[in-house]
């Protein structure tokens, strides 16, 4: 195995909690050096359960996980000095000041940056003398990020790094993550903000109910989904009055009252033909909305598909 190619390798990972709940159900993926990989999913999809195994906080029930070529749980001492971790929910003693917390962490981190530099990176330098209990939720996330960056890690695990940040804070964090990636840091990020994954990730995977539903570049994942055209049927018209949907290149459709939603993989062709028809017929398509597939649509569709599959399986059984 060449660790220069794959900094993170996950093979058939399963994680089962004490009560028997199977949070991660056999997932595999790999992250290359310098890549930014986003793990997307709804709450409870198993993202954090997966990342905790990668961080070496928990052992897999089965399957294997390698980080920088090592088992992150059994060989923690090899892995930890080279990774940085930001937990979804990590704590700091409320009565320490920001600087005291960074100094403490610095004493426990090989190759640590100076405390001031780390705080500068995340925009907390002005708050260095403040007790942690007086920080806002967003500022605590920034402090957490500063500690994750303290050892100039080769691999950075960010579990929902922007949850609780305002729009400005989120933009600043994105900028910082982009800069880290540009300097060669491998980043594994979990998020439930789709635009975050879309704008930052080289590759992403969508997780649902403990499984990876799909993975690829944002463009690849999006391209799996059809685009959409929606509008209201003009008064006196029925669906059958439209040109044949097959001829438009429409793969499926919904009708709710007078509202029509068409799905197509050939958006330009379908939209052009529909609009030409409307022009010839001299009708107005009210509420016309034409949109390419988005990650959001892909995401919702995957959630629906997985549910449908499960239902089919139950029927068969």
């Amino acid at each position, binding site marked *: 195995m060449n660790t220069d190619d794959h900094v993170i390798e996950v093979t058939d990972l399963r994680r089962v909690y004490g009560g028997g709940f199977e949070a991660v159900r056999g997932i595999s993926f790999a992250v290359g050096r310098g890549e930014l990989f986003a793990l997307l999913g709804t709450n409870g999809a198993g993202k954090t359960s997966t990342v905790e195994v990668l961080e070496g906080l928990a052992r897999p029930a089965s399957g294997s996980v390698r980080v920088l070529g090592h088992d992150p749980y059994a060989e923690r001492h090899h892995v930890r000095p080279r990774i940085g*971790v930001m937990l979804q929910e990590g704590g700091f003693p409320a009565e320490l000041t920001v600087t005291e917390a960074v100094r403490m962490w610095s004493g426990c981190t090989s190759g640590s940056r100076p405390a001031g530099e780390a705080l500068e990176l995340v925009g907390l330098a002005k708050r260095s003398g403040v007790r942690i209990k007086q920080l806002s939720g967003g500022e605590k996330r920034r402090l957490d990020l500063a500690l994750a960056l303290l*050892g100039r890690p080769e691999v950075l695990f960010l579990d929902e790094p922007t949850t609780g940040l305002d729009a400005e804070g989120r933009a600043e964090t994105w900028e910082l993550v982009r800069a880290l990636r540009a300097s060669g840091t491998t980043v594994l990020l979990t998020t439930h903000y789709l635009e975050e994954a879309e704008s930052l990730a080289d590759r992403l995977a969508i997780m649902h109910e403990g499984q990876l539903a799909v993975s690829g570049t944002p463009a690849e994942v999006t391209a799996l989904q059809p685009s959409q055209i929606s509008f209201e049927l003009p008064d006196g018209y029925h669906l059958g009055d439209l040109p044949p949907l097959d001829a438009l290149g429409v793969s499926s459709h919904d009708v709710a009252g007078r509202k029509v939603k068409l799905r197509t993989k050939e958006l330009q062709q379908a939209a052009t033909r529909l609009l030409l028809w409307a022009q010839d017929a001299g009708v107005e398509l009210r509420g016309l909305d034409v949109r390419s597939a988005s990650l959001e649509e892909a995401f919702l569709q995957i959630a629906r598909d997985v549910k449908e599959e499960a239902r089919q399986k139950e029927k068969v059984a």
Partner: protein
Amino acid sequence: MSTATATTTGPTTTSAGRLAALGRAELTLLGRSKGMLVTALIVPLLLPLSVAQTLKEDMLAKAGVTMGTSMLAAGVGFAMLFAVYSALTNIFVARREELVLKRLRTGELRDREILAGTALPAALIGVVQCVVVAFGCMAMVDLEAPKALHLTVLGVLLGIVLMVALAAVTAAFSRTAESAQVSSLPLMFVSMIGSGMTVPLEVFPDKLASVLELLPASPAIRLVRGGWTGDLTAYEALGAVATAVAWVVIAVFAVQRWFRWEPRH
């Protein structure tokens, strides 16, 4: 290993360096918690004085012990129970519930370093108090100079290590800092009465005394007192050390088995 990212500057950490960094932060926190300061600093130094009021000279004489060694045992015992055991049970629970332990576990600190580093200030305060108590007793209640100081020192150290481990065990069975104050009571009560801290074991019937000698804190107190008076035979000293070590082993096993690093979901 060569990467575009890692132009590491600071030194590689050592176990001692990590312990010092964590211990320093904990000391800062201890200094900022008034409640902790009272429990850790004042109570153990004041309580022995109240014990002095209840001990009767004739009872002590009958049991063959002096006021000086009784006060020493009380002072050392209370330092272990309040400054180390009770304080640390609270601290371990508080750090777990505010997710500090979980965050620490993502770094280079090993599990035992997290517990040891967190315990460092309390353990040091415990040691300092034992020294203060010893000098105080020599100055105020005619405690003679120690005959076998090494046994006393060994007793203090074994006792403090055991208290740290038992605090971690107790923390494992306490959900909140408030409930930790209750769940630490049984050991404190039993130790005060049955481990020779307030009542010398010599006043109990022989059979009961030999059972009480097996309690967790008993061997430490026995070593402290016996080391001071020089009354312990090598055989007795060895027995006390063996009992203390056995308790440490049991407690460390219990910590490994039951200690939780994050709150229950």
